């Protein structure tokens, strides 16, 4: 149990999140992948705060608040998308590109 292990786990979680972000079509699944990545960042913060000191836990508190706001807005957007297209596949939401 040292900093390297924690950072390796955080890297793994982040990359799994990247994979989900790149390959999923459903908007909710993309939000789940985003959660994975946020969590990986938080884990890295806490690990550094534990093994090196510093205000890492403070960062995590703010990151948590921002993540929750992001989830609320994201799900509202998902519902809007669903209402518009009867589907939550993100590749159908390309109308903002013109």
């Amino acid at each position, binding site marked *: *149990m040292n*900093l*390297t*292990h*924690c*950072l*390796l*786990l955080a*890297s*793994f*979680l982040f*990359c*799994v*999140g990247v*994979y*989900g972000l*790149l*390959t*999923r*079509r*459903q*908007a*909710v*699944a993309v*939000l*789940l992948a985003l*959660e*994975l990545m946020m*969590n990986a960042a*938080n*884990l890295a913060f*806490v*690990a550094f*705060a*534990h*093994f090196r*000191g510093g205000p*890492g*836990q*403070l960062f*995590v*508190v*703010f990151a*948590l*608040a*921002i993540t*929750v*706001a992001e*989830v*609320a*807005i994201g*799900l*509202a957007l*998902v*519902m*809007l998308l*669903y*209402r518009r297209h*009867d589907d939550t596949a993100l*590749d159908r939401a390309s109308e903002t590109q013109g």
Partner: protein
Amino acid sequence: MTLLFVLALVVTAIAAVMVVAAKNLVRAVMALALMLLGTAVLYALLEAPFLAGVQVLTYVGGVVTLMIFGVMVTRRHEGANAPAERIHGFRGLVVAAGMFALLAWAVVASDLERGATPIVKPETTRSLATALLDDHLVAFEVVSLLLLAALIGAVVLARRRDGRDEGSAILAAASREAIDAQQAPAGSAHGGDAR
């Protein structure tokens, strides 16, 4: 201690893979809950008990519930068993694996254990509270403003604007019914215009 750490690490990693691999979106959300609980255990082991509690309360209690709502509300026709389709899976795998290799190389190569000194003073909940409500009070208040903006934004985005899409949003309908129950019964047909 070490055994618990390894257990939490393995559970978190497997649950994370399940989140992106699960065909069923509800299962993916449940795997996310497991992953978040594993991370909460890791926080507790890393002497962040307050964050572990907050993680369980807001993430597992709030975010996962919200996600379940999101899955259920947007899966009216197929039920919750709609397959989670994926696009260009191989390329995504290559990118993610490459990124992990790069990150892991950076972590291992930087040899973090070499100059490691024992922690002088681990951050406790008390010092976290002091930092949050004393030293960084302005940031704290700005975050409360952000949450308020997100609250209002989510309500504005998700509410029904007219009667055309009736029934397509159970959540919006439920919230509108709650509002209409307090207003006159006639307000349900035209109340959405005044936005």
